[in-house]
Each structure stands twice: as structure tokens, then as C-alpha cells.
């Protein structure tokens, strides 16, 4: 497993995590940041698989469903108070 290809994604999620910490108590901004992280994760997945020439709808669906799960869990927690 080559970790270098994950470097952009690692940087994005770390920035996202910092943003969520920085904007604690501001729910709309926190949710926007999490959505941004998920879009970046999805984009990274598509680009990475396209480069490796193994992109398929089934693969995009896997990223989509995990991304959706992440947003659902996060939104549920922040709006459950």
C-alpha cells in the first residue's frame, strides 16, 4: 500500500477536523465542513480509480454510500441536542 497517494486526502481530513473543532457550537458551518470533507473523499476516490483505470459505477457507489453514512451520522449527532 503506497501511502503517498493518500497524502492529499489526509491533509483534507485534518483541515476538516480542525475546522469542526474551530467552529464548535456553530452547527451549519460544522455540517458544511463535513460535507466538504465527504465531497473531497468522493473526488479523491474517483480520480484515484480513474488514474488506475479501474473506475466503475460499483466503486463510486461504495464511496457514495460511506460518504452518505458519514454525513447522516454527523448531522444526526449535531442536531440531536
Amino acid at each position, binding site marked *: 500500500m503506497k501511502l503517498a497517494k493518500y497524502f492529499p486526502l489526509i491533509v483534507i481530513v485534518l483541515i476538516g477536523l480542525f475546522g*469542526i473543532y474551530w467552529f464548535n457550537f*456553530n452547527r451549519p458551518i460544522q455540517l458544511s465542513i463535513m460535507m466538504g470533507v465527504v465531497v473531497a*473523499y468522493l473526488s479523491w476516490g474517483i480520480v484515484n480509480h480513474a488514474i488506475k483505470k479501474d473506475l466503475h459505477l460499483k466503486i463510486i457507489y461504495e464511496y457514495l*454510500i460511506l460518504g452518505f453514512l458519514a454525513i447522516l451520522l454527523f448531522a444526526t449527532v449535531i442536531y440531536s441536542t
Partner: protein
Amino acid sequence: MPNYLLHLFVPHHTNNQRAKLLHPSVLSVVIGVFVLFQIAINQLAIRYPQILGYASNISTEEILRLTNIQRKINGAGEVRLDSQLNSAAAQKAADMMARDYWAHISPIGTQPWAFINDSGYAYRYAGENLARDFSDPESVVKAWMASPSHRDNLINGRYQDMGIAVVDGKLGGRETTLVVQMFGTKISSPFAMKLPVSISVKAAEINQPIASSNISRFEVTKYASLFLVVLFIVLLVIDIFIVMKKGIVRWTSRSFAHLLLMTTLVGAIVIISRGQII
């Protein structure tokens, strides 16, 4: 290990070399179950508030005390409760509940200062902090202090008076406790209006805990979500380890990318505290 457990949790020839729980079809079921769980939690909180209801215990005196502690630490003079500002804060809170909005400016464009003017408090300087969904006064003041703009208001040496309203009710269809904090400094002005102050009494009356639940919906949701995310992290770590160890070649998405997303989600959920401020 029994075969059905291997099938569910470990890359195996029966699950196309990926734990069945990580297959999109099973993930869809997990999402559905989680949504149903949340609906059940919400219904439980509505029908049996004594079990899983919304609970808060915020007193105006405690907000005043904690505000003055922070002001003292930061070299600002103490503020004292002002009945007119109390009235303005209570009117603002009542307006937010009545018009169902969560903002400094109302949907019809009413500024916070309008409530202060209406209370008869003629101000030279004025400021407003809002909070909702907190369960105790310490968390409210801590959240305000953590936000630069709210902190500037809270420890601003120009303010001499403070009004506070703690109002329980429904905002956006959800039970909440709304905290309105207004700061001001009076000017001696011929324009100062003398209006009756009646809402401050009401604010004091409604400043009571609204439920006696030991478990909050926020905590239940938070820990249920954490359980789910940690489960996926464990599955992904097992997946990455076994695929690397056995040198399995397969056509799937990248487990390490999923692991990064789930780890971020755990961090984000842990960071989140109860309550909102603007």
C-alpha cells in the same frame, strides 16, 4: 471462528474477499436501521420525556456570576443585572419562540437593539449573545468564551449592565432552552423612554428546569453513532491487514480511504459539544 462470523467480519472466499458488513447492500441496511433507531429515539423523547427527555438547569444568577468571573479575570468591571435589559432579553426570547427563528435579526428585520429601545433602556453601547440547547450555565459561558466575537461582548469593559432571559420552549419543532444575554451601558438622555417592565417577572418564572431526565437524546445518539463508526473502523483495519498479509487482489474501493473518513468522523463526533451559540 464460525463461518457466518468470518463471512460478516473478515475478507473470505464466501464474501468476495471483503467483510459482508462492508458491502454496499449491507451498508444500506445499516443506514435504514440507524434511521429507524433515530425515529424511535425521537418518539421516545416526545412520548416519555421522563426517560429520554430534554433537560436543562440554567439560572440567570449563575450566568451573571460566571460572566462576572470571566470579566474579572480579563480586567473588565463587573456588570449588574438591569431590569430593563432583562425585559429586552425576555422580549427577544419570546419573539424568537413566537416567530420560530434562531438569529440575531428577526425574519421581519427587527434588530436586537429594537428590543432594548422598547424596554426603555437608553444605551450608549449594547451587545447581544445567544445560546440554545445547553444543559448547564457553565457550558454556555464556556462556549461564549471560546468564540472570539461572543468573548469580545462578554469581557467588554464598556458594558456596565446585563440582562438575561432563559426561556424553555420549542424552536424549529424541538424542545430547547434559549439563553439571551444582552449587555449595555446607559446614557442620560431626554429620549430615554419609560416603559413598564413586565416581562422580566415572566422570565424569572419560566427559568426552571423543564425535565428531570438523566439521559439526554444527544448522548444516546452520540454514543450509538460512535459505536457504529468504531465498528466500521475495526472492520476496515481487519480488512486492510488481511488483504496485505494474504496479498489478495480484488476490484473494490480503497479501504484506507474509508478508514481515513471514518477516523475523521470519530474525531468530529468526539469534538462536538452540546449546544449552539450565535
